[in-house]
């Protein structure tokens, strides 16, 4: 019996390995995506286009505009007339317009001597993107008023991610998203394919136990996923410079568990799905949305209504992303994520158990 199990695994592996193109794609896709997204995706507010309305281009105004033009966050797009404000913002040519008072210089002088004053600058901001609007308003005030404002009184420190590199923030999320989707897709589609073609029936009438059939299907994909995982971790460390201060082995074992979980999820899908199309639609399209929105990779979970905060507890990616963030970025040791690890383990056992029971049921 043991031999037949081994030969089964061999058959499955050969089946996958023979299709070199698919193999290559399977390995390449996660790697390309993670590197691409790791470098490109960022939520920092950057390159905000700014135009200026100044009735008189006095020294003070020119000076302030220069400070903006030389600031990394902003791109100065030139002076415009007051009646152009609306059109410039609406067409998206600029995201903010600074309107200086005509007696800007005189009033600035008053302020530095401590005399009372009324508004001297108006910021008209395209608030359709809320975060860009909020951040650029704050930065602009800081730059424009300089010492006249209170900003100089603060000293800020960003812990764990001092350069505010977004790659740090997104690598765990992207890993969590891509690993689960790719693994679930691979397993579910390949099993349903066998059901459709009819080879599954041949296997099921053989004397091999159904659980072994299932495992023999999962093992090759598990191996592939491990390879992918190793590549991803190496790239994250050497290319994206994610610190991984929580220890490589901890990160690796947690990820292995997550891969197993994802494969089991694919198995569950394969039991529900009658056709390959359905398997694919469930594991790619239907699952993509909650993974994207409820894993905390992009959108903080605590912003969602309370019901969905509870709901996010059953989204596996949420726990993985949380734990891996702690270990990769905050440098927490493996022990600090025992809770997430246990939950993921529980989910894996549950998925596998349900799949096995259902799989056996089908035989009756």
């Amino acid at each position, binding site marked *: 019996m043991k031999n037949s199990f081994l030969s089964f695994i061999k058959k499955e592996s050969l089946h996958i390995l023979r299709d070199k193109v698919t193999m290559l794609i*399977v390995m390449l*896709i996660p790697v390309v995506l993670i590197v691409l997204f790791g470098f*490109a995706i960022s939520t920092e507010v950057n390159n905000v286009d700014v135009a200026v309305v100044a009735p008189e281009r006095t020294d003070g105004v020119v000076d302030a505009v220069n400070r903006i033009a030389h600031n990394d966050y902003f791109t100065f797009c030139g002076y415009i007339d007051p009646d152009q404000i609306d*059109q410039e913002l609406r067409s998206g040519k600029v995201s903010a317009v600074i309107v200086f008072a005509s007696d800007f210089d005189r009033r600035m002088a008053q302020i530095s001597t401590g005399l009372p004053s009324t508004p001297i600058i108006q910021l*008209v*901001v395209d608030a359709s993107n*809320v975060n860009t609007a909020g951040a650029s308003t704050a930065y602009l005030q800081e730059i424009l008023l300089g010492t006249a404002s209170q900003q100089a009184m*603060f000293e800020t420190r960003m812990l764990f991610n001092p350069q505010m590199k977004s790659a740090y923030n997104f690598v765990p999320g992207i890993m969590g998203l891509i690993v689960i989707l790719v693994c679930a897709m691979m397993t579910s589609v390949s099993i349903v394919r066998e059901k459709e073609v009819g080879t599954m029936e041949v296997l099921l009438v053989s004397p091999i136990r159904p659980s072994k059939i299932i495992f023999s299907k999962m093992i090759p994909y598990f191996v592939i996923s491990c390879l992918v995982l190793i590549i991803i971790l190496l790239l994250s460390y050497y290319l994206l410079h994610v610190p991984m201060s929580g220890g490589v082995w901890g990160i690796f074992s947690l990820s292995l568990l997550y891969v197993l979980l994802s494969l089991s999820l694919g198995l569950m899908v394969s039991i529900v799905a009658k056709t390959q199309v359905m398997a694919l639609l469930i594991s790619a399209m239907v699952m993509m949305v909650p993974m994207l*929105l409820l894993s905390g990779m992009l959108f903080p979970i605590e912003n969602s209504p309370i019901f969905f905060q509870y709901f996010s507890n059953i989204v596996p990616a949420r726990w993985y992303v949380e734990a891996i963030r702690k270990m990769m970025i905050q440098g927490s040791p493996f022990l600090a994520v025992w809770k997430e690890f246990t939950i993921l383990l529980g989910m894996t056992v549950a998925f596998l158990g349900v799949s096995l029971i259902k799989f056996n049921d089908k035989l009756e």
Partner: protein
Amino acid sequence: MRQFIVLLQKELIKIRRDSFLPKLILSFPILIMLISPMLATMDVRNVNVAVVDLDHSTTSHRIISHIKASEYLSLVGATSEFDLAMERLEEGRVDVIVQIPDHFERDMGVSTPEKISIIANAVNATKGTMGTQYVIQTIAHALVEVRNEKNPNQMSELVTVQNRFNPTLNYRHYMIPALMIIIFILVCGFLPALSIVEEKEVGTIEQMNVSPVSRFTFTLSKLIPYWAIGIFVLIAAMMIAHLVYGLLPAGSFWVILLGTVLFILTISGFSLTAANFSDTMQQIMFILFFFIMIFILMSGLLTPIDSMPDWAQTFTLLLPPRYFVDILRSVYLKGTTLSELWQDFVALGSFSVLFNILAAVTYKKQA
């Protein structure tokens, strides 16, 4: 014509008889539009702040009460032990620590006082930056208030801010157009390709290839149902946006419709091209997954394109959804007109022509 009608009937019957597709097509867009705007918010609220108050003055108390009152910040507690606050931050229970130095109030009036330190957990970069900004603004307001009480009229707000197009700073309004686009990408990007590859796997496509059906007719009969579904999605999504989230387009519906039609043409053309390059469901799955992930994550749907490094910004020019994101958001929120968006429309139009030509050219009826 008759040929085309029977083929179209066949597609519709196939979709209708499927045990899963009709449910998916109906419920998926509606559920996403109903629920996702509540989830897809990067709006930074409930930033947990701990204050380390070494000053214990009126000013420091004023600062604490302002933080407590802020709608963005929530005060976890005030302490005089920095280490305790730091511990809470490491546990993740505190996002930002504000430390008010000793004699802050006394020094404020006379010389340059010792600075207030703000320490943020920046593991989540967005929350780190935005949280810090909110804290600074809140404290600044508190200080202005304190000064005004001492020398009335000395300072008032020097800068006024006018938030155009989304005065309530509602993040949902920013995300709703993006969510619509995600639905278009998933529905009109996945479904036509899967339907074609399924015919390839089952073998029915060979029966078509050996018949006098032209590839144009066959392709069109595949696409039309999904175009119709796309338009249905648009209307359903706009209705939900209005009824549930109170968002009506600021610009013209016809401009939105034109953009949507061009986008659906583009994405379904892309979908067909991908199908032409795959013989099995496994192949199409990886091809689609790869591109759709790039479309969703790199087109400015979820994170701004302006925040990307230069090479990535250049790369996004190759992604058709990028132009539609621009169109839909601008028209919806800002009321931008067709003539102001002509570049986006030209780009999107070119992509739709390109992909559909590509789809027709790469479809092989014989080898």
